[in-house]
Structures are given as structure tokens and as C-alpha cells.
């Protein structure tokens, strides 16, 4: 039976522009979508592409551990949202008013705006990557770094909902990590950065549950 390392080695042919495209698509989905199921899937896929790119910079084992931390974070988000869905069910049953026509338009306008903003951020990231290449890493990984950092910051800026901000912060950190592993290959730093990511995920989950418990959700979307 093949191990996780074998599987990663088999798909290593994707660890160039296809992975960068994957990063762009998954981060774009995170910016546009407010469906938690889609977001968790996109985030899991994003960590997969980041791990693929990391394999070109650091040892496969270390990249795999980083990926495992990322997928654990996705599991935390999945369990949190499942719990939140259960908490919200009684409220949803009470609120039986069908959405107004203008409300559907408002949602659509938000998604359209987010899509446009994501495209603008991606174009800016491309321009910056061409003009200011990062030291010690190849051009395509530079582009992936700028995309993750740019779209992560966009995600943080577009919402005050804990889950969106948390996903944005972790996307931002993934972009930085992709660059920083080339500068500082120390295992202690890698471990501490992993701990930082995991704690951000736990703090986000804590705030998400508190948000639902206080009934403050609609104000922050």
C-alpha cells in the first residue's frame, strides 16, 4: 500500500504552474463563497497545492508534516461548522420568512464584488511578482506567494466574520510560509509556525462558536 509520501511523489509533476493555478482557484473560491462546505473543501485543496510547491523547497517529509497540520486545521473548521449548524437549526426553523427578491440580489452583488476584487488582487499579485521577484525561490512560487498573501489579505479585509477572517489569516500565513521556508529551513521555526497556524484555527473556531451563541452572526456577514 503506498504511503502519503509515495502519493505526494507521484503527483510531483503538478508542483509547478498547475499548483499555482490550483492556489489561485482555491483562494478565489474562499474569497467569493460563503458556503462553509465549499470553503472547507477549497481550503483542504489549497493546502494540497501549497504542499506540492513546498516539496520543491524543503524535504518531502517536512512538507508532508506541514500539509498534515493544514488538513488538521481543515478538520477543526469542519467540526466547528457542523457544531454551528446544529446550534443554528432551531433558529432557522423559527425564521421561516422566504428571502425577498432584493435580498437575493444583494447576495449576488456581494459575490460579484468579491469576484471582481479577487481578480484585481490576482492581477496585482502577478504584476508585483514580475516586478519584485522574491529572493531564493523560483518565479512560479513567487507568484503563488503573492497570490496567497494578496487574496488572504483581501479575505481579511472583506469580512468581520471570524471564519472568513481566520481563513484569510491562514491563507496569508501559507503564502508567507512558502517564501520563508527557503530563507529559514530550521525545524524549530517550522514547528512554531505550525503551532501559530493551529492556534489561529482554534481561536477562530472559538470566536465562531461565540458569535453564534451571542446571536451576532448577521451583523458581521
Amino acid at each position: 500500500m503506498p504511503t502519503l509520501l509515495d502519493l505526494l511523489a507521484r503527483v510531483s509533476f503538478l508542483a509547478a504552474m498547475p499548483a499555482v493555478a490550483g492556489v489561485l482557484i482555491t483562494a478565489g473560491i474562499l474569497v467569493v463563497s460563503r458556503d462553509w462546505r465549499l470553503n472547507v473543501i477549497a481550503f483542504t485543496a489549497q493546502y494540497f497545492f501549497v504542499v506540492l510547491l513546498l516539496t520543491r523547497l524543503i524535504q518531502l517529509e517536512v512538507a508532508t508534516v506541514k500539509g498534515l497540520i493544514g488538513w488538521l486545521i481543515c478538520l477543526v473548521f469542519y467540526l466547528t461548522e457542523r457544531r454551528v449548524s446544529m446550534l443554528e437549526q432551531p433558529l432557522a426553523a423559527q425564521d421561516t420568512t422566504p428571502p425577498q427578491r432584493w435580498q437575493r440580489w444583494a447576495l449576488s452583488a456581494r459575490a460579484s464584488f468579491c469576484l471582481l476584487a479577487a481578480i484585481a488582487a490576482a492581477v496585482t499579485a502577478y504584476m508585483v511578482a514580475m516586478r519584485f521577484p522574491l529572493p531564493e525561490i523560483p518565479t512560479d512560487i513567487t507568484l503563488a506567494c503573492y497570490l496567497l498573501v494578496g487574496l488572504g489579505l483581501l479575505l481579511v479585509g472583506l469580512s468581520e466574520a471570524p471564519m472568513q477572517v481566520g481563513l484569510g489569516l491562514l491563507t496569508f500565513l501559507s503564502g508567507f510560509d512558502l517564501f520563508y521556508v527557503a530563507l529559514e529551513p530550521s525545524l524549530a521555526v517550522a514547528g512554531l509556525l505550525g503551532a501559530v497556524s493551529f492556534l489561529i484555527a482554534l481561536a477562530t473556531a472559538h470566536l465562531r462558536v461565540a458569535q453564534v451563541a451571542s446571536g451576532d452572526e448577521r451583523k458581521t456577514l
Partner: protein
Amino acid sequence: MIAGPLVLLILPLVMAGVVYVLRRWATLSALLAVGTALVLGIAVITLSLDQPVQPLLFLGQERQIAMGEAVTLLGRELVLEQADRMAMTYLFFTAAGLFFLAWRAAPHSLLFPMGLGLLSLLSGALLIRPLIYAALLIEIAAALSVFALQAEGKTPTRGGMRYLTFTTMALPGLLVTHWLMDRYTLTPDDTGLLSATAALLAVSFALLLGVVPFHTWVPAVAGDAVPLAGAFVLTVGNGAVWFLLLDFLETYPWLNTHPLFGSLFSTAGLVMVVVGGLLAPAQRRLGPVMGYGALVDSGSALIALGMHSKLGLTLALLSLLVRPFGLALVAAGLSGLRARNGDDDSFDALRGLGWRAMWSTATLILGGLAVAGLPVSAGFVGRWALCRALMPSSPGVALFLLLAGLGVMVGVWKGLSALLERPRSPEENETQEITSEGWLMAAVLAVAILACLWVGFFPQAIAPLAARLAETYTFFVP
């Protein structure tokens, strides 16, 4: 023999676990938290750095503690130096004071276990070398503090989230700095590396200290979080960031010879003072007023550091030392008022509450005076000394500082006038629930008020400490 730095890291962490388990017994957990912070603070300041002292009974064997002994943890060196010693004393004693107030004002919050955990991490940040690990530990501490900031199912989640966001955004700059300095060591002709380092450090510390326009987390933390946890972040957490900044200036002395050093700090501080002074009176809730007061205070400390002299450094440290008195009092008063008002601190909701919560109101007033830097309070000590030092060279800046203090006081005054509004009719008065604050709460608040007044009336008790602390840094010539 036990190395002192290990004790400072491990003991608060172990006690955090114990206190978390004992959380149901609020008094026991609070007193354990206060005791731990006090014992560590006293140990740091009294035990000698040069030689092992005080035989300690540890697992049935007599052990000695060597506070000054360096220890290696995961290949990184942890060492307690003279400057860190004073800084850590400040952190431990401030935390002890906040835990003491939280004993009565927020007995069931997560502040006790999380606060002890934060003390361990922040101590590690001050002890560890190289400094990139300090940045990582501060980021971990920020993530952990979210659990203390957010009350369970009560308030909006904005404060904790914003604090975490800005701290996370500061992390890359601090980490890359280390690599840039390593490269500069190899290629000393490339001065562009120094400029990049200075720019990254400036942006990172601006994010961490809440410099305008990155200040939005400060009023959010003060307004939306558990008040004493907010005060913890704004005093202990922010204090650790200040000492880390001073460590950076000490480690890289070329930073303070940068031509823009003085003007950068002075301008950033002045903008914070002006923004805080203008926005504080415009608030409709007491929490954000405290946040803008803290912003003015941080701005005044930056202005002091921008004086580019030993005197300026002393005044910045004095401002840092007296800050907990004001913020802790406001937070304790706010906690008392919120507890009797369904967690609402808007001026409309507070009308007439002052007559039912006299001690909380009195604490809030004196804390407001201290945060605004007005006479008879602890905050006046630092603010007035800075104004006097600035008057000969920059009278305009000194005037702005005084006006900003008045602006903060106007915000507090608006809250006070709502609190002391008389009930409109006897019937309304009768329907209001009379809630006693209890003698123990009154005693705790009275102790805090007396401490603030004592420092205000006898500044000679605290000013020499700031001078001694400033002596431990050598990056400014006297």
C-alpha cells in the same frame, strides 16, 4: 541546579493548567494566579543573577536556582539579562494586579489560566535569542489571548479577531528581518538591506503597537472584549512588545542612528495622540473611550522615544510603568458596571447606574483621570513629565498632548454624566433593582484606587524605577 529562565517559563505554564482545572472555584483559582505572578515577580527582582541562591526543595531533593544561568532549549539560548529582569518584573506584577482585580470583577473568565499561559510565552519572548523566536512566541500569545478576550456567548467577536489579525500581519516583517541582517553580515556594502530591515521593523511594530492607521484593534479590544482581559492585552501584552522593540534597538544599534528615527517616532506618536484625543469624546460607549485613552498613552510613549535621548527613553518607560494603574481601574469599573447592566456599556444603557454601583463608578472615574493623564492620578506622573520635557523644544506637541488628555476626559465625563443621572420619578426609582457590590468587591476596588492615588501623590516611588530601567539600555548616549 535549576536554571532561572526555565522556572520562569515552566512554572506559569504548569500553574495555568492547575488554575484551569480549578476554574469552578473562582476564589482559589484567582488567588493561585495572583500568588504565582507575585512569587515570580519577587523572585525575578530579588534573586541574584550572578550566583546560585536559595536552596529549593524539589522532588524531595535540595536544589538551587541560578537566575542568570543561560539554558538551551531546542537549540535556542534562553538567558535572563538585567534589562529583561526589570521588564519581566513589570509583566509579573502587572499581571498580579489584574488577576487581583479580576478575582472580584471577572471571577469566571478565562483570564486566570490564559493570563498565566501568556506570562510564560511573553517571558519566553523576552528571554530567547535570536529575536525571531520572540516574534513567533508573541504571535502564539496573541492567538491564546483570544480565548481570554472573548466572553462565552456574550459580546461581539470583533476585538479578539482584530487583535489576532494585526499581530499576524506583523509576523512576516519581524521574521524576514533576521534573514536580512544575516545577509548584511555577509555583504556589509549592501546598505539597501539595512533600509529594508528598518522599513520592515517600522511597519511590524506599528502593527503591534496600534500606530495609526493600524490602530483599529485597540478600541475594538477595549470595547468588545472582557474589560480586564482587554487591559491585560493593552498592558502586559503591549508591554512585552515595547520591551521587544527596545531589545531590537539594543541588538541593532544602527537603527537609532537612522536619520529618520526621531521624526518617525515623533510623527507616529503625535498622530496617535491627535486621533485618540479627537475620537475619544465622540464615542457612545465607555469601552472604546478606554481604548482611545490607551492609544493616546502609547502615542505619548512614542513621542518620548522620538526625543532620541536617555531622558526620552526614561519618560517612555515611565509612561509604560504607570499605564496599568489607569487601564486596570477603568477595566475593573467597567466590569462592575457591565455585570449589572447585561454587558451593555453604552451611555444610554448606563443612565442612573452610578447610584447603584458606587464603587465601580468611583473606580472608573479615577481610572479615567489616570488614562487621560490628569492630576492626582498615576497617569499624570508620566504625562506631565513628558509635557515639561517637550515644552522648550516642541511646545506644540506638548499642547497637543494636554489637549488629547482633555479629549479623553470629555469621553469619560460623558459616561459619568450618564451614570450619575438621577431617576426621573420615584416610581422609576423603585422599579430599579438595587444591586449591592459587596464589601469584598468594594475592598478590592478601594485598594486599587489607593494604589493609583499613591503613585499620583508620590511619583518618587516609581520614577526612579523608570530611570534604573533606562540605565540598562545603552543605545542612547546620556
